[in-house]
């Protein structure tokens, strides 16, 4: 049994079916990249994994235990599943340090002093230690996103979901953020990420899934998807990405 199993997951908003039966299985230490056009269901799929969205069909299992449906302790689940959003979503009324310490102290019951030390260590590792007392509004997008990653890591999640985390950044700030993700991948953190950075996906992914209108059209190791895509729609998508200079 794989670490994370997504079995035939369906999700609709009203009459619009956003996910039409998606299945992925993720082993520990794997990095899965979801690619595809906007609106293809990448973000929705990620949000289903940590139950920000309820699935309408199928199920999701983490280490064999189902996390979808009624009766699941979603607060418990979310401690193990970190997520980073495209728009950072830091808490603007708290300093960087407080943003990071909030969940460990309030949810995991870590002592204030310990949480602070851990937060500082993590901030140091992403080069943000000197901004510990700054407020999110005074940081650049890249800095905010690094803090958001640290905030998720502070809960020591066993899997991280990254939802187009560089899509809102200035081009020159993308590199810093991707470097952190690269290191996390290297450390063996299991990750599921939706991204438009094809070059990056090619480099870090153990598996790439191409989503098209709520279904996985093609999946496989990055070399296969990027060098030798089988489906016509995948080829078309990738050739357009190449034309726009993103690969």
């Amino acid at each position, binding site marked *: 049994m794989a670490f994370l199993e997504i079995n035939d997951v369906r999700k609709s908003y009203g009459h619009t079916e956003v996910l039409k039966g998606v299945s992925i299985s993720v082993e520990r230490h794997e990095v899965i990249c979801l690619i595809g056009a906007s609106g293809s269901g990448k973000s929705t799929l990620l949000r289903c994994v940590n139950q920000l969205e309820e699935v309408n069909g199928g199920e999701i299992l983490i280490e064999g235990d189902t996390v979808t449906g009624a009766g699941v302790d979603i607060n418990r689940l979310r401690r193990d599943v970190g997520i980073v959003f495209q728009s950072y979503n830091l808490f603007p*009324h708290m300093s960087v340090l407080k943003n990071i310490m909030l969940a460990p102290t309030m949810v995991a019951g870590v002592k204030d002093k310990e949480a602070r030390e851990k937060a500082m260590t993590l901030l140091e590792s992403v080069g943000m230690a000197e901004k510990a007392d700054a407020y999110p509004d005074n940081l650049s997008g890249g800095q905010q996103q690094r803090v958001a990653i640290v905030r998720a890591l502070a809960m020591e999640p066993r899997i991280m979901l990254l939802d187009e985390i560089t899509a809102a950044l200035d081009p020159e700030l993308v590199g810093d953020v991707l470097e952190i993700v690269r290191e996390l991948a290297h450390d063996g953190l299991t990750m599921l990420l939706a991204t438009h950075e094809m070059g990056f996906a090619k480099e870090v992914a153990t598996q790439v899934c191409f989503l098209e209108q709520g279904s996985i059209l093609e999946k496989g190791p990055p070399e296969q998807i990027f060098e030798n895509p089988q489906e016509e729609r995948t080829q078309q998508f990738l050739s357009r990405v190449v034309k726009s200079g993103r690969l």
Partner: protein
Amino acid sequence: MSTHSLVRDDVQQAPEPSAPAKVTGVAGIALIVDLIAIALMLYSVKLLRDYNHGNTASTIVGVILLLASLGPLWPTFQGFLGAGKRAKLLGDKQLVAARRAAARGREDTAIGIGYGAAVLIVAGVLLLLLTNSGAVADTFLRIDAWRQSFNEEIHAFWINVWVAVVSFILVLIFGLILAIMRMLPGRAGAPLRLIATVYCDVFRAIPAIVTVLLVAFGVPLAFTFTQTWNVAWLGVLALTLTYSAYVAEVYRAGLASIHPSQTAASRSLGLSYAQTLRAVLVPQAVRRMVPPLMNDFISLQKDTALLSVAAIPEVLQVAQYWESKLFNLAPVTLAALFFIIITIPQARFVDYLINRDAAKRAGG
């Protein structure tokens, strides 16, 4: 489609350089406005002196007003100078300089018109107050009537302040309960949501004066134990019932104004909904709630005057007593002055808060 057909010199000729705007006409209008204003002020000042039997104070005030009314002539004069300069520069073919002179001249002229209009309004108001040999001033602004009623009114005004403060404290608590009821989730919360919604709709629909009448006269009859209460408490009860409905809306709107992504981020970290409310939503919402809450508080202070219909001895009740005793409205004007003095600083403070937040958002 090729774009070349859109980029052609023969369809994209440079426009004629724009001519300087005209100045003399508007300067003439400014002069007329200024002169009418001065004439009206002259007449009003004459009335002012007549009303005060030509005493020194009214003469000094009159001279000051007249001198001030001459002020707008200066920018108007500058406007005419600008018009002359524009004509001369245009004659010298200095187009750009002429445009600048014209622009400056028109700016001066506009100032002349604006200040002239202000003088006109001040003179007009003065005229209105003094016309009919001072009938307006005699009706609303009699100083001897103010002297006689001042002590009793200011004591009565304490009841208004007390009722406003006590009511608002209760409103903040009861409004919060209503707001929480309205936000209860799911099917289980539906009946309580409905009750709170109906309550808010009903009490926002009933004019406050009707609630005051019903409560102040009805409650002692229906619940006889309240007959021993100080009657002001019935006023507090009526205003609390009314304003809680408004304040519940403020709470609800404040929380709803926090972007859902904040909730998503907080819940994703494993915080429960209650923890999210406490640590993430409420601290952010409170800042946004303060200005509308202050506005409701100001309204509440003014609505304490409604308690006069229920024979509660607050300031308007006392003012009306003096009005009928002296056959003069000046005591009521005095009550109005009390409200002006306490509410205007608060209104300015609310504006300050709103501007500060707007500047912060624009800066962020």
